[in-house]
């Protein structure tokens, strides 16, 4: 009896209600993970147990053999206009200046920025389109370099989303929910597949801007949400100090750092034994990861050994840290080091007005480097194992926002249709999927919802989006919520 009394006291002392709850919920999550990993199968167990440091990390194996081992997502934040770049609509030229027929819009909601307009004059692309390559794909003159890689690319012209404004739409793409708080896509992948390179995080984020004054981005987009914190995206900046707080403070050398970490680990271990919160272990494995990154990151980010012609390939801007081109080059270097998910964000695509000029600036800031990345991955034999995705959070409307003149117009947000492209492992080459109507307004063939797109990318990475789940606050969550269908026709 006294034993039980003692035990009870001990538990009461050590476990606050909150700790207990979070412990048990994580315990359940871990159990779910264990079943995903089929941890009872002895080999998997060996593989999991064999990881140095973070034995508690859910190191996964895919549900089925993956076609893509890694992904580079070139996210074009602000929503590039598909009508100027990828989706050619001659009808807009014929009907230039006429009102968008109500039969097309069918009362669809508009943003507050154009809902009050008395007319919706159709605006044609100022830029011409031409056909390229053996696959004979149409692409705009704004993308001269991209036009040289169309034979490696699948264009999805029938993307559609639910959100109409930037923040919810980007959040929807990145976390599967319009409201923040859910784990980011990269975190899900890190959680499900683990990391190959023990010295680098499996989810890395790179940021760039094509133009000032555009939509902001937030850390919630690469947050781990309710997943263990080891799966958070790590932002790498360009320049000598890529990761915040990674370098030792002045006066602290590597040995002191090591000793400090060893002592800290003892304290953390004692704390863990007391309150059994797995986040303590995750935190410790983050410290260790940071320690290893102190050597690994400068090595990876060192571009001084790149030959001149590789810089030429990515374009003049690739020599300038923090540009999209420089980030594309870094992305390649990260992929070479087997980082699983490299998430680039490039800001500046929100052309409500002055579209012709601004989109030209933007296209120039990404065109050469995007094409160069594909070519560079290809010659290294990496495109066969890596998936590259290029696209924004929604599209832009067929009618002009504000005054329409021959040389100037703007376009408002348009969730009903937009284009993204993918290249690399497991997707068809020189292929177009989906179709919009002659105004580029509604999808008329093979619509691809954001959740379908997510399901497809997960599929390529060997993950069944319906089976990568995490139980949190009493319900099971997944990236695609209860939706998503793999778009099989674009797969090889």
């Amino acid at each position: 009896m006294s034993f039980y009394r003692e035990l009870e006291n001990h538990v009461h002392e050590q476990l606050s209600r909150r700790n207990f709850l979070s412990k048990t919920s994580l315990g359940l999550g871990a159990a779910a993970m264990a079943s995903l990993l089929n941890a009872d199968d002895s080999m998997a167990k060996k593989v999991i147990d064999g990881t140095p440091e973070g034995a508690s990390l859910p190191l996964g194996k895919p549900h089925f053999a993956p076609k893509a081992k890694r992904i580079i997502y070139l996210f074009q934040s602000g929503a590039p206009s598909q009508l100027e770049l990828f989706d050619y609509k001659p009808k807009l030229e014929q009907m230039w200046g006429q009102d968008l027929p109500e039969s097309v819009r069918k009362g669809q909601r508009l943003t507050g920025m154009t809902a009050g307009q008395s007319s919706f004059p159709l605006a044609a692309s100022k830029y011409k389109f031409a056909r390229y390559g053996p696959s004979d794909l149409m692409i705009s003159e704004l993308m001269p370099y991209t036009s040289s890689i169309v034979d490696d690319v699948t264009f999805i012209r029938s993307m559609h989303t639910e959100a109409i404004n930037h923040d919810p739409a980007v959040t929807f793409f990145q976390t599967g929910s319009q409201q923040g708080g859910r784990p980011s896509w990269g975190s899900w992948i890190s959680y499900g597949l683990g990391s190959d390179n023990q010295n680098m995080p499996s989810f890395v984020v790179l940021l760039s801007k094509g133009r000032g004054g555009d939509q902001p981005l937030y850390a919630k987009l690469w947050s781990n949400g309710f997943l263990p914190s080891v799966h958070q995206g790590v932002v790498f900046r360009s320049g000598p100090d890529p990761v915040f707080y990674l370098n030792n403070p002045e006066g602290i050398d590597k040995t002191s750092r090591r000793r400090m970490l060893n002592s800290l680990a003892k304290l953390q271990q004692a704390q863990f034994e007391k309150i059994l919160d797995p986040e303590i272990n995750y935190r410790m494995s983050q410290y260790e990861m940071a320690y290893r990154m102190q050597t690994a990151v400068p090595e990876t980010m060192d571009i001084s050994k790149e030959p001149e012609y590789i810089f030429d390939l990515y374009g003049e801007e690739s020599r300038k840290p923090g540009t999209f081109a420089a980030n594309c080059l870094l992305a390649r270097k990260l992929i070479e080091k087997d980082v699983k998910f490299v998430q680039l964000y490039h800001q500046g695509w929100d052309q409500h007005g002055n579209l012709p000029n601004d989109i030209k600036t933007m296209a120039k800031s990404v065109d050469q480097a995007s094409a160069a990345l594909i070519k560079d991955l290809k010659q290294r034999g990496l495109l066969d194992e890596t998936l590259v995705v290029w696209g924004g959070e929604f599209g832009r409307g067929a009618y002009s926002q504000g005054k329409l003149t021959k040389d100037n117009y703007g376009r408002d947000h348009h969730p009903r249709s937009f284009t993204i492209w993918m290249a690399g492992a497991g997707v068809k080459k020189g292929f177009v999927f989906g179709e919009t109507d002659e105004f580029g307004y509604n999808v008329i063939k093979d619509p691809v919802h954001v959740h379908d797109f997510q399901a497809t990318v997960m599929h390529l990475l060997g993950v069944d989006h319906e089976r990568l789940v995490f139980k949190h606050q009493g319900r099971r969550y997944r990236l695609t919520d209860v939706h998503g269908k793999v778009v099989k026709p674009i797969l090889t």
Partner: protein
Amino acid sequence: MYNLLLQSSDWALFIGRFHPVLVHLPIGFLIITALLEVLRRFDKVIVSESVIRLLLLLSAIGATLACIAGYLLADGGGYDHELLDSHMWKGIGIALFAWIAWLLKSDLLTARLKTAPVLASSLLLVATLLTFVAGHDGGSLTHGADYLTQHTPEPFRSLAGMPAKVVEIAELGPIADVPNAIVYVDIIKPVLERTCTQCHGPGKQKGDLRLDNLTAMIKGGKEGPAIVVGKSAESELIKRCLLPLEDEKHMSPKGKAQLTENQIALISWWIDQGASEDKKVAELKTNDAVKPALASLGSSAQNEVADKTTSEPEIKVALGNPQAIEALQKVNFLVRPLAHGQNLIEVSAVNKPGLTDEQVGLLKPLSEQVIWLKIGGTKITDNALKAISGFKNLKKLHLENTAITDAGLDALKDMPHLAYLNLVGTKVTDDGLKKIAALKGLKSVFVWQSAITEKGIEEIRKTHAHIQIVGGLNEESVAEFVRLGEAKTLN
């Protein structure tokens, strides 16, 4: 009047459905009463007579209510009559015995009848035992007769004299010879047995419908025939399946296993083609709608998730030697199963830039299991390749940026599946390229920054057009790329 009747039948079913809830009250009460009674006999607990009396009264009331609800529920129909009868009488028996036991315990009878306490205890025991039997009948009525014992594991199975477990129909296996398969027997019936006959079969006939044989399907149930031969669109069976999941009449019920699109297509096609019991696939006319469904039968793709999910052919190998895997991990190799449920493994030296030839030798015991191997960017030489010669399942091999030469490539000749070979930044020459071009399975080889020349590539392309030989960029080609791009760039 009609309205009132309708309403009353609603009431009946409403109350009836509480049967499964109510039924557990007397079960619990009786067991606890019996337990207390026994323990009391052995002086293990102190319980007054009045507590036992109260418990017996509660048991009796509970059992009576459960009987009433059960009767109303049974009125809804759809159960096996024999089993239902036996269940009902056992239930009534329990209620009756409980009442009598309670009466016998009353002061009035205890005083006059000497044997009353013994009698009461015996009745209580009988009633308690009856709950087990009746409860089992009830379970069989709801879940099917073999529900409880269906998953009896060995050796209890043989000990109990039960037949060996039939492979569950739940996994519909691939059909080897689709054109010669008999449509009803080989395709339709297994699907129905998996999804429908649990409620519409020999055990239970919800809505008086049976779907376990063709005659019964055409005869139909309460709401008419299940299939109209030649007209799938008018067949209730198909209509029910196509209703939205939320619809009350949708079949199978929400939460139960659903028919897939392919399965519905197949059943519709079979009905349209005359719902024959013995015709083969080849004897019926196919149409566009059913083709993909028929195609799916041949592969293991019947469970829809399974199709097109793997980039690798299914190669069955034994589980890798755990000690060998451990040895690899000890020297910091990354070892991963290719996928869930597969013994094939992927091995990478991404965390091991200092990898030596000797350490590659550690892979030998896993010669069957390794399908992807990444040892590029390390200190290995040709000797390392000798260690992996005869890795017959190897499909992807990364040797980039190593000191590999032509001589080492001889070791690859017995790798019929090798499809991807990365030789970027090696010393391999045109002679080496010739050697590997002979590999049967080779699809892509990457030769950028190796000693392989443009001319050597051209030669192999002529004779081996199916191999994709990927060269790469150099100063001139990049200059050309930039020149072309700039020429097209708008000012």
